[in-house]
């Protein structure tokens, strides 16, 4: 006996509470089980890579804020590092430390958002998200007092950072860093052993290490699948080579492991921040560079370990004031390509959880 029915096609998105923006998955269903998943992107395409070819190197920094609006600092850093590589600009030590401090704070903020929305996608009614927002809010306050913006910071500059930190920054940062382990213990106490969360995320959306590598996944997606890979260790940039920290790695490759890896990374970021704040040297934070920077003809690729994975910028210079080619290796987009692999065969409810565990930012997927 065979069932002769046409598949039930359902659109998850583009307007849907769980797609984290305007992203659409067209799924074919058999009952609740997904038999086919088709990702449709581009609803948020803003043509940033092309627009960047018309603007000077400094003018492009705000674009990078808006690529991944939850991790503006990391994006700034990656882009600026690419330009610095291209133009061979040196950054003073204090600038390097400030960059790392901001990037790690940004990682905590971004992971807090990721974990919160992930648990939301599992069906919790906003409560974990609100808890996560509590600390994210304090981090955004730190950003605000440093550069005036909370979300789209536009802080890192070619040759350093836009402003040195204000006087009230360090006490607040120290307070937060000291409280961080306790806060994380609270989060873990709330979430890690929650029976329903375990039921919803353990064994769901399994991606083996081989598959994760084949899909070029990076970040918590890759680490959740048992691959200890972190650019901060593999190819240390800024001052990460002076930091003591560890790479949290999951062994099962399911949604739960990705969620746990994120929680653990927040802890490690706290460690890094502590070391950075201890070692923070004095002196100049920025080497001034001309606003209309004209790097020599050539190309450069620089990548950082962003909250979502390897965030790389590839820039080609023709010697003019604007990049000839500006390309972003967006971890959200590349991690997302593993989505059909993970969702086919699971249910609709699982698909939402899996999407939540990938932690996409649609601004970065579509650019």
């Amino acid at each position, binding site marked *: *006996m*065979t*069932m*002769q*029915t046409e598949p039930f096609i359902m659109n998850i998105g583009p307007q849907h509470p769980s797609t984290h923006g305007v992203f659409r998955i067209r799924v074919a269903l058999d009952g609740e089980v997904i038999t086919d998943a088709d990702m449709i992107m581009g609803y948020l395409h803003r043509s940033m890579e092309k627009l960047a070819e018309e603007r000077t190197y400094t003018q492009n920094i705000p674009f990078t804020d808006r690529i991944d609006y939850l991790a503006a600092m990391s994006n700034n850093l990656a882009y600026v590092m690419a330009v610095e590589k291209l133009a061979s600009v040196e950054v003073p030590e204090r600038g390097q430390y400030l960059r790392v401090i901001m990037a790690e704070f940004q990682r905590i903020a971004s992971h807090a958002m990721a974990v919160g929305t992930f648990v939301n996608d599992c069906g919790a009614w906003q409560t974990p998200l609100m808890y996560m927002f509590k600390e994210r809010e304090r981090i955004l306050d730190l950003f605000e007092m440093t550069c005036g913006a909370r979300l789209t910071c536009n802080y890192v500059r070619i040759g350093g950072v836009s402003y040195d930190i204000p006087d009230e920054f360090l006490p607040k940062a120290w307070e937060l860093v000291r409280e961080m382990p306790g806060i994380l213990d609270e989060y873990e106490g709330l979430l890690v052993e929650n029976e329903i969360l375990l039921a919803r995320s353990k064994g769901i959306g399994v991606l083996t290490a081989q598959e994760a590598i084949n899909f070029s996944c990076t970040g918590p997606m890759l680490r959740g699948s048992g691959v200890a890979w972190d650019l901060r260790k593999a190819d240390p940039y800024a001052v990460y080579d002076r930091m003591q920290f560890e790479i949290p790695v999951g062994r099962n490759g399911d949604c739960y492991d990705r969620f746990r890896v994120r929680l653990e990374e927040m802890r490690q970021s706290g460690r890094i921040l502590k070391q950075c704040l201890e070692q923070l040297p004095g002196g100049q934070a920025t080497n001034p560079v001309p606003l209309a920077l004209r790097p020599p003809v050539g190309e450069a690729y620089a990548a950082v370990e962003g909250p979502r994975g390897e965030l790389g910028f590839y820039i080609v210079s023709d010697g003019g004031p604007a990049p000839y080619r500006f390309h972003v290796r967006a971890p959200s987009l590349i991690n997302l390509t593993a989505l059909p692999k993970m969702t086919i065969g699971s249910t609709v409810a699982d698909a939402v959880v899996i999407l939540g565990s990938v932690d996409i930012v649609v601004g970065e997927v579509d650019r």
Partner: protein
Amino acid sequence: MTIGIEHYLIVSAVLFAIGLFIVLAKRNLIGALMGVELMLNAVNLTFIAFARFTESAQPIAGQVFAVFVITVAAGEAALALGLAVAVYRTRASIDAEDMSTLKW
């Protein structure tokens, strides 16, 4: 005016007739099943009306019978609808007139 047993029996007869018509005339299998349910309901009404109005050693017996009818109706509904779904799966149709072969 009082309502007697005749009133209930006539309502029941009308309902039974409607149910019979549905069973005999409807093309859709599930539609026909609705007729069966109506007929069973009509029979129940008769039993309960008798239990209420007629002389008997154990007047509740009519209601006991209705309980059995309801129970059997539940089983019948589950089974018949299962049949309808099974037929639909093999034939992609639940039109009663399409089901004219004994074997396929």
